[in-house]
């Protein structure tokens, strides 16, 4: 398994009126292709910051971030946008679908920005993706008319739109009931089975069993990075 993502000595310091705050402290992390990784930790432990640094949404204060052999912390905003669109699929906790567009149009817009999928094949791919996440019948509906679970499936389909190698999800089941959350986790697992690398920030105890690896953050430091399922129990007890 090759290293898809490499973080070396990554720190993130925020300046505020109250003084400096270190959200990440000397993080060293490697994630391989096809891994299914959970990032857990208490609120304020640096999970979202780590995800932001990994996706190029935020820049590290120190250290390097390498994804697919590319030093993303050296890219400018425009390069990052293109790279992110091609490489990363991001799923948000509150789905963040564009409310004024239908589900199919939400996917099409993401494809339009990145322009990886040829125009002629976009319709077919949208249909295929929606079928894959099980909401093909909702293609022409607006987000507001879908249930939370359906919206999150749509968000995953959108994240997959440009065939990224990495899917990153920030609390994707935080807003869903347990049954729906389980089906969403299954969806991520299916993606991993298809060769995608999936990173998920989660609080859900029950879902940890799905992951290959669980990274536990505490005060901006990786406290534990163990393979599932054995360490998960320990993690579950302490972190969640």
């Amino acid at each position, binding site marked *: 398994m090759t290293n898809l993502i490499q973080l070396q000595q990554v720190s993130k310091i925020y300046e505020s009126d109250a003084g400096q705050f270190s959200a990440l402290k000397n993080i060293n992390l490697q994630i391989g292709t096809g891994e299914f990784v959970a990032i857990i930790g208490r609120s304020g432990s640096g999970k979202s910051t780590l995800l932001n640094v990994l996706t190029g949404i935020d820049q590290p204060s120190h250290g390097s971030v390498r994804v697919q052999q590319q030093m993303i912390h050296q890219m400018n905003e425009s390069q990052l946008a293109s790279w*992110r669109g*091609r490489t990363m699929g991001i799923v*948000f906790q509150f789905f*963040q679908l*564009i409310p004024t*567009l239908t589900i199919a149009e939400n996917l099409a*817009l993401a494809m339009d920005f990145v322009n990886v999928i040829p125009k002629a094949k976009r319709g077919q791919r949208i249909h295929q993706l929606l079928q894959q996440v099980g909401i093909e019948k909702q293609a022409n509906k607006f987000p507001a008319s879908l249930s939370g679970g359906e919206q999150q499936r749509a968000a995953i389909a959108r994240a997959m739109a440009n065939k990224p190698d990495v899917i990153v999800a920030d609390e994707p089941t935080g807003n869903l009931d347990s049954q729906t959350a389980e089906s969403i986790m299954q969806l991520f697992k299916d993606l991993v089975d298809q060769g995608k690398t999936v990173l998920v920030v989660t609080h859900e105890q029950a879902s940890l069993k799905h992951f290959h690896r669980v990274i536990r953050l505490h005060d901006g430091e990786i406290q534990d990075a163990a393979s599932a399922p054995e360490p998960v129990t320990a993690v579950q007890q302490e972190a969640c």
Partner: protein
Amino acid sequence: MNMRLKKALSDIRFYPGRFTLVMLALIIGSWGVGSVLVSYFVLSQDLSANFVNTKPPHAMFISADFKPADLSRLRQNPAIESAEFRDYGIYRIEVKPDEWVPLRLYGATEFEQQSLAYFYEQQGQFHPNKGAMVIERNGLLISDIEIGKPVNIRVGNRSMRIPVEGVIFDPAQPPATQDHFIFAYVDQTTFQQITGEAINQRLILRYRQAQNDADIQKQTDALKSQFMLEGKTIRVSKALQPNSHPHQWQLDSLILMLGSICLLASLMAAILVSQLMNSILAKQIRQIAVLKAVGAKQSHILQIYLLMLLLLGCITALIAVPLAVFSGYGISYGVSMALNFDVLSTSLPWWIYSVLIIFSVGLPIILSLPAIVKASRVCIKAGLDDYGLVQTQAKPMQEIPWANRFSPQFLFALRNTLRQRKRVVVTLLTMALGVAIFSTGFNVRQSLFVMLQQTKASMLYDVKVVLQNSINDSQLRNLFTDLENIRHTETWSGGQGVIQSEMNSAGRGVGITALPFDTQLQASIMLGGRWLSGSSDNELMMNTWAWKAYEKPDIGSMLSITLQGQAHQFKLVGVIEEFDTAKFFIDQSRYQQLANPQAKVNSILFAAKQNDYDAIVKLQQQIEQRVARSDLSVLSVESQAQRVKVIYDHLDIILVSLVMFALLVLIVSALGMASAMGINIMERSREIGVLRAMGATPRKIRSVFVSEALIIAVLSISLGLLIAWPLSASASSFFGNLILGGTPLPFAFSSNGFVITFFTTLGFAWIASYFPAGSATKISTKEALAYE
């Protein structure tokens, strides 16, 4: 469809109310600017074209010594393009039973083969038969004259009935509706028969090469010298202005004024668009972050919002441009009717359409661009962390000393008003500007009325009789000695109006009024210097137009004035305000000594003992009866009220347009307020849910929003009235320059305008808040709480 375009379209569909309001404002603004632009193009081109196409004469000479052979010789002169004898005289015509106005009668030699001063066939006979006449079409609007029926005319002491055989169109003449003259045309034989005057006395001609006014004057002087060398006595020699219609000033002032107002309306509408874009962008900041997270570059975000504006602009242009063309032509037809000319332009050049599209599409984009660029630059993280309204750092209510004087509901509205300060400032300024323009419209109108009142107050006579020629003072007075209702009588040489200027002129187009220095019948406002003193010195007063014509000389300076062909030195002692053509005022006794040794006069003015309407009408009828029985050649018998009406008719078109277009600005600002209130309500949907959960009824919630709008309206009115003050003063100055020849109009505050502005603004504010608030309260509490 392009997805970015689809996103832009879907956003427009998502905020239909707000986009409709803003688009309406944009349409009104663009429509206004477009209408003025189109009408300006058509009118400025066509008024001039109508006038110039008639080939107006460059010069006019009057001499009893002209012979037909002179005309043939002139026509062979290579410096002369065309020449014609067109005799002319001013008489009287009965336009309605017992209502007489001056008749300006031309005896034309050419009807079918005109070579200059063209007039055109309109209706009925073009070339009248002997003993008949044709009248200028605008005269029909002020008279009961009908083709085929005879009219009464008076020439001197003779009355006659002359059949009207047709209607012609002479675009070079000022409109009868404003000047209250009738223009009529007869052939030379009929002219001689009607007037009893010799023909071939008035020569008009055009020079082949005439670059400018100075050139025309030079050639006219040279020709006059030539005529005099030939032994001819030239009674009148006049260089004319062949490039400017007599009423061009009205058109210029109208267009400039309307253009400024509409430009402002368009700018305000564009500000509204930028305000709406700001609010949409603030609301969509997380969406922008998400779009960036899924791969959108800054340029993609820019494209989406620019497309949105482009769509808005295109829809606006699609509606506003045809409307503007339609109404622009409408205005042109209206003005052309008022000024008596024909609209000739049937197509508009491409640049007009380009300017209209730039206004509809470009202006909103330019004003919204900073907000779009700023939003497109937002970092994903900052965007995702944005939760909408920022809490203001305002003082708690209990710390405001006067807070307990108001109800909590009012205080809530007051605090909410100040919540989005930037938006409130924009709304307030937009609304204040609307109020200011609207109020300025009324104030300028009031200034014009005050000027009219002052003009009326300066004319202390009640009825005036003007003769075609000068006669002995006693001869004129004797005719009216036993009239009962007469308090005071004066006889003057020259007087008010165009005709008097033509009869008694000092050159440079300036008329002379020789009146007793201690006159009791004129009390004009002195703008500088003093009234005539009656001393043995040559003293002169002038009105503002004359002052301008003589390049604004200092009071006390000596001027060389030509009286009856002889130059005299006069000391300028005063300048008066007067709505009239350029005039000099000289003490009658000095004038008699210098240029009128026989002490002849041509007008008599009466002040009545009783000057209520009925008494004056009766007096005027008595005077008319005396005139009819006399052998006097009377030009007009005019009451002071009729004279004021002539002045008012000149200004009416401006007065009406001013208020109409100012209302347009107020509507745009009201739409701005509606849009701002809509945005406020949209942003506070969740708050509405909370209020309802707390037990507020829809009525109470609505009253909070209406109170907010009324607070803004009252602040806007106060600010608007403050802005209106200097604006009105500037506008009055501008109009004064156009109407009074450089003197500002008196500044006047219109109390009626204030009341109308106050209640109209409050009414607009109420409508702008009541209905959006009403729709917001229709959302269920659950939906409102869930609103993100």
